[in-house]
């Protein structure tokens, strides 16, 4: 039962994956349009990825909590 809960919590990775995918696609689009602004776009992309990744991290923390903190 605990393992199941942890597995469900790990589904947050889906959201993070989709989010980062979209962000990267848009960033590639932007760099193709304006190659001279790639430094700025890269910075923003990294930031957006880190923020989107946070949801996956939350899921990871929750699953770990379910597995270990309840003991």
């Amino acid at each position, binding site marked *: 039962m605990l393992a199941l809960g942890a597995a469900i919590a790990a589904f947050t990775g889906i959201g993070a994956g989709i989010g980062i995918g979209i962000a990267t696609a848009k960033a590639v689009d932007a760099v193709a349009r304006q190659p001279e602004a790639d430094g700025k776009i890269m910075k923003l992309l990294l930031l957006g990825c880190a923020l989107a990744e946070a949801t996956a991290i939350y899921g990871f923390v929750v699953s*770990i*909590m379910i597995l*270990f*903190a309840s003991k």
Partner: protein
Amino acid sequence: MLNISIMNVVWTVINLLILYIVFKLFLFKRVDAILLKRREEIEHTKAEAQRKEREAEELKESYAKKLQGAGKECEDLVAQSKKDGYDEYDRIINDAKAKAEQIIIEAKHNAQIEAQREKDAYVSELTDLVVHAANKIAVSKHDEESDKELYNKFIFEAIEKSE
């Protein structure tokens, strides 16, 4: 794993503040001091350069003005010296005139004195002559002819002497 102890949170905050002070004292303050000093020096140098430039500009301007004024000054000088020369000339001429007049006066005076003296000498000679003649007359015999001759001789002598 997720247990929170307040004391450790406080410790973290204190650590962060200590690190902030460390950075402030050892990095930011020191580097800022150096940067400030450098900026001050640059400002100082800039101000100095500006001041010097302004001074040079002023000097240049004053020289230009002086150069411009030099022509006029030159003319003034020439005019002044001319005027001085004329004055001097006048003065010398006047002096010369005055001197000449004085010389003339003196000469006249001298001539008068000389004439007087000559006249005196002449008179005294005449007297002598008269006395001489009188003597001659007294010692020689008296006739009309010889008197006449004597008078003539005397007169001639007198004329000869006076000339």
